[in-house]
């Protein structure tokens, strides 16, 4: 049998890209959000360097509006892999006046993260940041390269990207510039879940069904937290929910679901008719919301 199955080929491609980062850059890092995609990245990085440890520090941009379960999971994972963790704090960016917090009902720290992320990259002089972005997630991401150049302001110029051919990656840059690297560019949501099942990868408990205080805003179920402002007529109730993606509490839509195993989740996703970012409040601000954020240096 000399034909790889599709997930084996995607795994091989991702490992190649991760090793290429280690070879081409002096101070690489791995952006870790606590979501399933970045967890898969950590596992792939482990495979890429085994029997050596993961060569990059994990960088978490902490909005201060996390699900508690994500932070617990993060710390356990860091210990398990003997990894180094660096936290960039959005709260600190607010306290020091680098950014001003949004006000109002839809206030989110999602956009503020960009400043904290770029400050963190600059502070530690990272020349590459590996991320879990996938091209199937969103239409602007469909245009991303594996090796995506960022100028000294951290900006992405989508109309002027370097062509990327075969498996040759050009990571050359000037001082102060950096690269975002996306090893799982070619994976779909289903690929990620099948891989998690096949490789028996642990996930934060919020991906599985649990009871939570939630409220409904414009058809999207959001988790209640003390810093969430409710509008008139919005009511907090207890529902059985799970996360399909994990981000900041303020913008992560929850699914009403009783799925409590990976098999259940995969069945649910196979039957679903809405994309995973369909529940992301941050993408619904405009048709080009993601493109605009990415140009400024977002994940």
């Amino acid at each position, binding site marked *: 049998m000399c034909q790889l199955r599709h997930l084996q*080929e995607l795994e091989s491609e991702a490992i190649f890209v991760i090793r290429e980062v280690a070879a081409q850059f002096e101070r690489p890092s791995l952006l870790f959000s606590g979501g399933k995609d970045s967890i898969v990245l950590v596992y792939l990085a482990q495979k890429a360097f085994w029997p050596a440890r993961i060569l990059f520090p994990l960088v978490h941009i902490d909005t201060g509006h996390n699900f508690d379960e994500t932070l617990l999971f993060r710390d356990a994972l860091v210990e398990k892999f003997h990894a180094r963790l660096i936290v960039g704090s959005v709260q600190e960016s607010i306290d020091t006046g680098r950014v001003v917090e949004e006000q109002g009902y839809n206030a989110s720290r999602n956009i503020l993260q960009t400043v904290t992320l770029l400050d963190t990259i600059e502070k530690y002089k990272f020349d590459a940041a590996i991320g879990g972005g996938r091209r199937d997630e969103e239409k602007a991401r469909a245009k991303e390269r594996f090796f995506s150049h960022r100028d000294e302001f951290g900006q992405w110029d989508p109309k002027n990207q370097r062509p990327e051919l075969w498996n040759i990656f050009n990571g050359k840059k000037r001082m102060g510039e950096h690269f975002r690297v996306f090893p799982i560019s070619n994976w779909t949501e289903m690929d990620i879940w099948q891989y998690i099942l096949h490789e028996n990868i642990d996930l934060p408990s919020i991906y599985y069904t649990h009871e939570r205080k939630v409220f409904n805003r414009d058809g999207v179920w959001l988790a209640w937290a003390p810093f969430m402002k409710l509008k008139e007529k919005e009511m907090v109730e207890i529902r059985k929910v799970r996360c399909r993606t994990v981000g900041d509490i303020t913008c992560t839509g929850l699914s009403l679901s009783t799925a409590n195993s990976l098999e259940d989740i995969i069945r649910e996703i196979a039957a679903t008719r809405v994309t995973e970012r369909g529940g992301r409040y941050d993408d619904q601000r405009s048709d080009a919301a993601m493109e605009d954020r990415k140009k400024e240096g977002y994940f």
Partner: protein
Amino acid sequence: MTKHQDSSGEFSSKVYLEMELLRFTTAGSVDDGKSTLIGRLLYDSKSIFEDQLDAVKKASLKKGSEHLNLALLTDGLRAEREQGITIDVAYRYFATPHRKFIIADTPGHIQYTRNMVTGASTANAAIILIDARNGVTEQTHRHAYIASLLEIPHIIVCINKMDLQDYREEVFNRIKTDFKSFSDQVFPGKDVRFIPISALHGDNVVDPSENMDWYQEGTLLQALENIPISNDHNLTDGRFPVQFIIRPESNEFHDYRGYAGRIAGGFFHKGDRILVLPSRIPSVITSINTFNNTQEEAFAPMSVTLTLADAIDISRGDMIVQENNIPRESTTIEVMLCWMNQRPLQVNGKYAVKHTTRDVRCMVREVKYILNINTLEKQEEEKVVKLNDIACVMLLTTKPLFYDPYSVNRITGSLILIDESTNETMGAGMIL
């Protein structure tokens, strides 16, 4: 979605894990209906989600479009949606129970040859679209030539807009004959198939056409599902460009020294006698590791780590090959070069070269000719290689490259040129 079912009708991870991967690219001129075709493939194979469809419906209305504009599904950037053109390669994904597909959706404009070359570089198959009303055009020649230059193993020619030609068989046959008279020169013996379609109405894309009963050779999706791809990688010549050296420096693996990389060609087995290039020092493979796991053999395109019997000085950019099958080695490299930057190629100029995992520098010695890719004429008096030109060029490298001709191995036969002051990728070369 109700795909990937087992016999009981349940979604089956077992079926999913058995799928193969096919990468294909699409080439067509503006208005040949390329975006509509991709939209149709995604829509009819039920790969579009409701929120994506809603967004397209909204956007179609906003643009004053009467019908659902499937082309809007594929244009990702604001400027593309505003201008109704595709600027950059976008990647799309869909799956059937047999295969997962990656589409490199490339713009059709004449000035965007570089994007087509980019999309074609990783493709197993190319779909070339022809408007049935216009037949074979200069653009068609260009697309066919690039597909052959990039050694895409399988070509599917879709003759689109058959609905506007009353689905007539003679229109299909005439275009097929025209295309063949050109393609027999460009890629003799290549796997080329022809399918009459209407992307707008869906004839022969996913579902068989009810309007063309004279055509019985299967739909586009059937072709994509059944193309044999097991020979698309070179599985003959063992090539392992060393990518990274793994040294754990832990107590458990104190003396471990592994050579990590992705196999670029052929097979490697435990116990194989190998040569390391450029030193030409022989050794024996003692283990082939993937994570926490050793295996007896590995083949292209697997990412593995090799250990050798002897402690040899090996670094990134070296190549491990089978002892009895070594690649060519030279500092004089003749390439077909696709130029990708506004600033023309500098004859006698110096560029950085990336070839497999090897970084060298080169000087451009000579432009032998620029190809007119509409007529295939070699223009020997033309020496200025501009954006989107394809030229035959001689390079002199500072250190030898270990390579195979591109026609034999797409990985060890390809390279890129980088401007040393701006760091931009300037050109893509296929070694002759």
